[in-house]
């Protein structure tokens, strides 16, 4: 194989256009006669609308149309929730794209202005008068579940969207009643606000003469958006084309189909002109989905020598005012089923209550459910270690699932594919020189310095997933992926995929897969994605599934090409197919590599078809729909080293070492990039980020001045290592890596801070670990406050 194929760290081909500003995002696309939409959003978290006066706005300069909820009746169906969690009493409140009589979060859409310019549209918003009757609001999930809490939806008792449980293994109550030790904690997984570099945007263009609607949108999954839009807007799927041009990141916040998208489509249809809507950053903070927002009460039962016997938890998950597209599956399927972590836990029980609150809807956010699960398990293991006076690494070792290559069942019902958890931890401890760090920590403590070490050993579920499982868990779609590989006469290749990368680098890695399978240069392969009219159906890019599922489809399509090419080569070399051999893009008779046909030779012949074998079709092209037999389960071990300034409470992250196993790496540089970004987002949750609402439901962290994203100068160099355990069921053995870092790192940093503060008697601090929170916890532990 040549140096630039599978496994080599070639540069991302996406980068030149991205870093020179020549990429084309939704907002860069303007059609002749494009009109601009602006949305009036509710300033109240909960209010009744008595009346709306749009007359002044309607006659303002440049304004073409103003719509309120009543104008959309019968034209825009409610924004759909498409994960119908079974056996959970799921109740879905109607999410009207434009509010009818009640608004339920700051940001709920109340009216739409379409004008000739964006500025005119925004100016006209100020002229709309809405008569509101404010109502009491509730923003915290556990409070929303309480008696007497303000009720969001008349038809839904107790604000409860669902109550989901997972029970597995032995009797959970017995595990706790017979335990030598029990450790408990209450954790607040604070609300996070995803910050994709590109805010959301839609351009919709309806042609009345043909009944065709073309939509450019910042989506992670254009085929799903087409499917849902056809249902909501009533344009048949064959007349609807969704294009995801360059998409500047998503982290889960661009999975959902949003009211604003449907409204823009509606406006274009109504007005017969292209209509564009682009959100501002403030609007993004208010109305693009948020992540996390759990209150978790967790406990662990164990023996005196540190063997885990049971894990029990109750979680109140804030869902926001309405259920976003995939929301119900996040704090349940992607969370509760992962509570065994990397450990052998004989009994597990969790109750998850999904609650409506007067806040922005909560959706998947990098890791989506799994960071919240890892955090619970990794906290409990550390608490157990502290209680028993054991090193946290040792307690982990006593409970790890032993190495396995082809399937291991955990009591939550999943079958992990492959793993060597002790291998990852051992490598981590060696790379970090853990013993030495513990010695330095002891020395520092003598000098009144508070250094802490935090471990997080994780496994995550990704590569979603078998479609039969999708159906069984209520996901209203399939979870397979597709790929078309097409050779042109000159031997150049087009790859069309149904998934929709938006920053992850698959244009590069997928070319490497083709290069590895077929011996062409990756430079000869163009990867086409994101346009429903010229890519095969696929379910999109999220849940670290594009390579894990779409990459498998692509490898299998390439193998079909290889099989066909071999038949053609045999014919041209006048040999029997069984006698043919293949190596690095060349087909030859076994033992005679000197007289060969290259894949390019075959591509030319297949395309001109002058001399094809009997019964073989012209063309060199293959399509695969790949439905994975199982999920994939990447894993690893992370270590954070922090120092806490006890005087001010400031936490400094001094070192971060990661060992991740995502199977064979197609491009190790891209893997490292994904690991870096993922880790930093998880560190953000531990130390800085929090979407804060006041009791009235006003978002207090509504701009980048208040919401603290991680910054490079507050981070150490991240040390990235890996082990390689192939997935037994994936054609390339690969697992996902897009979310792994985030899933691991929050717990590692948190555990490190608690470890640092142990001599001061601090046992828990709410995240993010701001200096004030840390300082207050020290004061309280020292009895000073």
């Amino acid at each position: 194989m040549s140096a630039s194929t599978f496994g080599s760290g070639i540069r991302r081909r996406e980068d030149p256009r991205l870093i020179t500003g020549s990429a084309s995002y939704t907002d860069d696309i303007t059609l002749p006669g494009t009109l601009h939409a602006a949305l009036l959003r509710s300033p109240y978290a909960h209010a009744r609308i008595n009346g709306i006066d749009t007359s002044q706005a309607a006659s303002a300069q440049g304004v073409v149309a103003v719509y309120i909820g009543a104008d959309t009746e019968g034209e825009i169906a409610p924004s759909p929730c498409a994960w119908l969690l079974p056996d959970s009493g799921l109740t879905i409140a109607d999410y009207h794209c434009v509010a009818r009589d009640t608004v339920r979060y700051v940001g709920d859409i109340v009216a739409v202005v379409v004008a000739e310019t964006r500025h005119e549209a925004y100016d006209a918003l100020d002229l709309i008068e809405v008569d509101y009757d404010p109502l009491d609001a509730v923003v915290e999930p556990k409070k929303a579940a309480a008696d007497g809490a303000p009720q969001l939806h008349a038809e839904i008792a107790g604000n409860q969207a669902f109550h989901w449980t997972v029970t597995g293994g032995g009797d959970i109550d017995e595990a706790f009643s017979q335990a030598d030790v029990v450790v408990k904690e209450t954790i607040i997984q604070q609300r996070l606000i995803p910050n994709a570099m590109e805010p959301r945007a839609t351009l919709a263009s309806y042609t009345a003469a043909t009944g065709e609607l073309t939509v450019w949108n910042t989506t992670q999954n254009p085929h799903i958006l087409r499917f849902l839009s056809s249902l909501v807007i009533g344009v048949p799927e064959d007349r609807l084309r969704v294009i995801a041009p360059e998409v500047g990141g998503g982290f889960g916040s661009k999975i959902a189909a949003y009211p604003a998208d449907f409204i823009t489509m509606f406006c274009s249809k109504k007005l017969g002109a292209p209509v564009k809507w682009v959100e501002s950053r403030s609007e993004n903070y208010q109305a693009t989905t948020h992540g996390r927002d759990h209150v978790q009460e967790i406990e662990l039962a164990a023996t005196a020598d540190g063997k885990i016997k049971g894990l029990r938890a109750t979680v109140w998950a804030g869902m926001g005012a309405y259920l976003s597209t995939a929301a119900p599956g996040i704090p349940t399927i992607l969370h509760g089923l992962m509570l065994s972590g990397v450990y052998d836990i004989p009994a597990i029980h969790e109750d998850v209550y999904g609650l409506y609150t007067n806040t922005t809807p909560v959706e998947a956010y990098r890791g989506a459910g799994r960071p919240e699960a890892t955090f619970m398990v990794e906290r409990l293991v550390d608490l157990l270690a502290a209680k028993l006076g054991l090193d946290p690494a040792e307690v982990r070792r006593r409970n790890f699932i032993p190495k396995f290559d082809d399937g291991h069942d955990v009591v939550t019902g999943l079958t992990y594919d492959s793993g060597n958890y002790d291998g990852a931890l051992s490598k981590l401890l060696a790379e970090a020189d853990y013993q030495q760090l513990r010695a330095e920590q002891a020395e520092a403590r003598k000098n009144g310095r508070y250094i802490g070490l935090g471990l997080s050993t994780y496994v995550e579920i990704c590569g979603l997933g078998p479609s039969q499982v999708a159906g069984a868990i209520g996901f209203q779609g399939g979870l397979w992926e597709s790929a078309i590989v097409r050779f042109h006469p000159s031997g150049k290749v087009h790859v069309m995929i149904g998934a929709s990368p938006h920053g992850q680098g698959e244009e590069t890695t997928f070319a490497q897969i083709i290069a590895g399978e077929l011996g062409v240069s990756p430079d000869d392969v163009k990867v086409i994605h994101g346009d429903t009219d010229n890519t095969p159906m696929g379910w999109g890019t999220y849940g670290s599934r594009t390579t894990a599922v779409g990459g498998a489809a692509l490898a299998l399509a390439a193998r079909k090409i290889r099989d066909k090419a071999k038949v053609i080569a045999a014919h041209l070399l006048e040999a029997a197919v069984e006698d043919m051999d293949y190596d690095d893009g060349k087909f030859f008779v076994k033992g005679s590599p000197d007289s060969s046909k290259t894949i390019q030779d075959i591509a030319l012949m297949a395309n001109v078809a002058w001399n094809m074998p009997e019964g073989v079709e012209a063309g060199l092209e293959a399509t695969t729909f790949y439905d994975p037999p199982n999920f994939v389960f990447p894993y690893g071990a992370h270590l954070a080293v922090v120092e806490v300034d006890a005087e001010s409470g400031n936490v400094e992250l001094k070192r971060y070492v990661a060992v991740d196993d995502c199977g064979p790496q197609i491009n190790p540089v891209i893997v490292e990039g994904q690991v870096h970004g993922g880790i930093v987002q998880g560190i953000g949750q531990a130390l800085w980020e929090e979407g804060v609402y006041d009791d009235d439901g006003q978002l207090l962290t509504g701009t980048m001045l208040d919401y603290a994203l991680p910054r490079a100068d507050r981070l150490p160099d991240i040390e990235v290592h890996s082990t390689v355990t192939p997935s037994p069921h994936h054609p390339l053995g690969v697992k996902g890596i897009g979310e792994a870092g985030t899933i691991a790192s929050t717990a590692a940093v948190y555990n490190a801070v608690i470890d640092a503060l142990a001599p001061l008697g601090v046992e828990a601090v709410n995240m993010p670990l701001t200096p004030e929170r840390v300082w207050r916890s020290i004061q309280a532990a020292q009895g000073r406050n």
Partner: protein
Amino acid sequence: MFAPQFDYYRASSVAEAAALLEQHPDSKVLAGGHSLIPVLKLRLAAPSALIDIGRIDGIRGIREEAGRIVIGALTTHAEIAASATLQSGATALSEAAGMIGDPAVRNRGTIGGNVAHADPASDLPAVLRCLGAEFSIAGSSGTRTVDAADFFEGLMTTAVEEHEILTSISLPSGSGGQGSAYAKFSHPASRYAVIGAAASVAVADGVCSAASVALGGLVPAPVRAEAVEDALVGKALSAGAIADAARCVGDSLDDDEVLGDVYASAEYRSAVAHVWVGRALTAAAARCG
């Protein structure tokens, strides 16, 4: 978001700018735009016109004049951070300017705009208060000079009147045996000061002969920490003496005035302010050559 509509005028001299301000009620001076434009975009203000002073040459740059360092109002944070004159003569100021925001902010934002805006979380007001700055203000009726104690009047208010322009700021040149420093607890999102402490000390015969300490970030307008200064003068600047003196900072903070927000409460800021005062003093003492 988008700014509301406004008219735009570019002034080529201070006199022209003053005249334009008089002609256009509700107008605002535009310098680097790094505080004003965000305010407009969030629609927190809607001036009828912006008077751009950004290309008036006479009010930018750093020069020494009669024992004082004079800094034109349009001098950028980056220029202040990089100025050898200020690095040696007013170290705390160049140090603070180098901690503002990020490079883009430092390359566009000006000292004049920073102090005229008088955001309580800004860095430069406390430093200028500490170093005893004087402010030259021009209006259609002439020029006047105001010292730092009178310039910063309160939350986002200064001695600059509606139709006036701040033209320059001057500082006494530092002398031998003296050192100054700025220590900052910066907000993780905005980078603004949660607590900012500026200190200037002079040492003669092994003991502190003069001290000036000012705080920003946690108060509406910068305050001098006189209790800290008094505790230091006459003492050798040992670590212990500095720490003890720094702990007196609470005496100079009025509990009702201390600011708090979702990130850091007033109570917390008051309780830990001494840490940054101590750091600024330690660094300033180390610079007394």
